[in-house]
């Protein structure tokens, strides 16, 4: 919790420093950006609940050979792995994210209504599926490659920049974050349903589709990898 709070505090300081110099960031106000940041913590928290098992997957399951045990059981291997332990730090992020959204929302005078509340879990889960899909795909690469570290850390570092409204970035970056590495869908597009005005509502509603698609691609990579798996034999 300490680390989560410190991280939040630093983020708030940086945002307030930036907005003490400019009134709006390409049309986005401090409160809007803050709301998007708060929303981004929800899928991140959900993802962190299960992602501890993906991190270190190749070491624990492939190199140590634990995956043999998983395959012997009559339950989906991925479900077994994701649920084998929970990163309880994710709960902190859910709480803090909710608090930041409530604070920014009240400053914006936002009235999200019943539909908004009903939509929130759907959007958060869909966005979490984007995370899970991307990192599942990257984790699955360890079925092909011996390298233990791989590409996951640099990709993870992109997250911190995808919490800003993507419209502030150049068209190329926007394109990359929307279609190639779809991290714009974990914070900005879904959160824009609440703070972006009418033109963003339809885009935001595509989030479940993107989440499903990303997770689908990740899962497909995973199953292909599982078929390729050969035990270390130790």
């Amino acid at each position, binding site marked *: 919790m300490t680390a989560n709070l410190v991280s939040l505090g630093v983020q708030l300081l940086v945002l307030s420093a930036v907005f003490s110099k*400019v009134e709006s960031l390409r049309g986005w106000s401090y409160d809007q950006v803050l709301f998007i940041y708060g929303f981004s913590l929800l899928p991140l928290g959900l993802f962190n609940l299960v992602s501890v098992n993906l991190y270190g997957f190749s070491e624990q399951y492939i190199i140590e050979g634990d995956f043999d045990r998983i395959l012997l059981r009559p339950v989906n291997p991925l479900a077994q792995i994701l649920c084998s332990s929970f990163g309880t730090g994710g709960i902190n992020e859910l709480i803090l994210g909710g608090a930041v959204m409530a604070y920014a929302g009240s400053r914006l005078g936002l009235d999200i209504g019943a539909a908004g509340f009903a939509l929130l879990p759907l959007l958060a889960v869909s966005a979490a599926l984007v995370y899970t899909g991307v990192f599942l795909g990257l984790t699955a690469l360890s079925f092909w490659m011996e390298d233990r570290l791989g590409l996951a850390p640099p990709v*993870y570092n992109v997250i911190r*920049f995808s919490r800003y409204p993507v419209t502030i970035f150049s068209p190329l970056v926007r394109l990359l974050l929307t279609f190639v590495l779809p991290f714009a869908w974990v914070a900005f597009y879904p959160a824009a349903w609440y703070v972006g005005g009418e033109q963003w509502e339809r885009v935001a509603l595509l989030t479940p589709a993107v989440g499903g698609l990303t997770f689908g691609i990740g899962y497909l990579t995973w199953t292909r990898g599982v078929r390729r798996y050969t035990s270390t034999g130790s």
Partner: protein
Amino acid sequence: MNGAGAPALPRWRRGGPATVALYLQFVRLAFLKMLAYRLRYYTGVVSYTVFVAGNYFLFSAIYASRPEGAEAARLGGLTLAQMIAYVILSWAGRSFTFNNIDRTLSWQVSKGEIAVQLIKPLHVQTMMLSEALGEAAFRFLLFTLPILVVVVPLFGLAPPPHPALYGWTLLSFLLALVVNAQINFLVGCLAFYLKNVSGVVRAKMIMMEFLTGVLVPFTFFPGWVQTVVAWLPFQAVSYVPVMIYLGQRPGASLAGALLLQAAWALGLSVLGRWFWNRSVRHVTLQGGVRWRPRRPQGPCCRAARAACGAGCTSRGARPRSSSPTSRSSSSRGWPTGWTSWST
């Protein structure tokens, strides 16, 4: 023969040159160890490129939305070109000054491996600083330079106002490395008092990004924040060297800025030595044996004398190449999660 009650052992001394040679050995070994793990720094180059690129686009957007007619297109005293140089140098500097002393030390304390360090005839603080220097030599050649080779052509690094500042910046980053190592050592010592220090280590890492000025230059903040950070040692880790490059160093003069860093390096070393001598009395090793040295600096020398016996010479104090630190510091340690801050 000096009368009755002569000491059983002659006083053991290593001598100056042998001591220097001993710690140089740790510098060398740390460099070689990093060399063995060099593959993992390839993805690190990508990570740092992501950091620089993200901040580049972010600050470009911030500068593009600054109010009309803002004086001379500056925000917080920096033009956009200077801001980009600030971003590049902050992250490149971080790739150079970074080390894991806090993680390594706290890991050794909680696993009990610190016992092995305590019976060696050396000072753990100096040894860890030496290892940080060796690591930094590796980082400079095979991490920071590759990052610069990728990042500078992509985003463009404005030259400093005077060519001599290249050299002074480099010197300043060397001092920054020592300051950072001493801060990490102090944080690592906390493991003697706290049962679980990993949260503190993580929180410190996040806080450092802000307090050293890597995330945003302090000139973006109101005056009172600048006053506070000016009194803290953290600005010496990144903000001071970067501002020296930009020709906008804090303080009266270039010499003043460097002296400030040197003073922090020295002050924190002394503080670290004092804190270590206190903390080491707190160590509770597996099985509940509590370490009680008779003299503050005792544990190392006394135990070593006992271990080496009376015939111990300066050559006998050479570290073996497979010392536990050289294995543990980067291959093991606290789990970092997905973030690659730790590279």
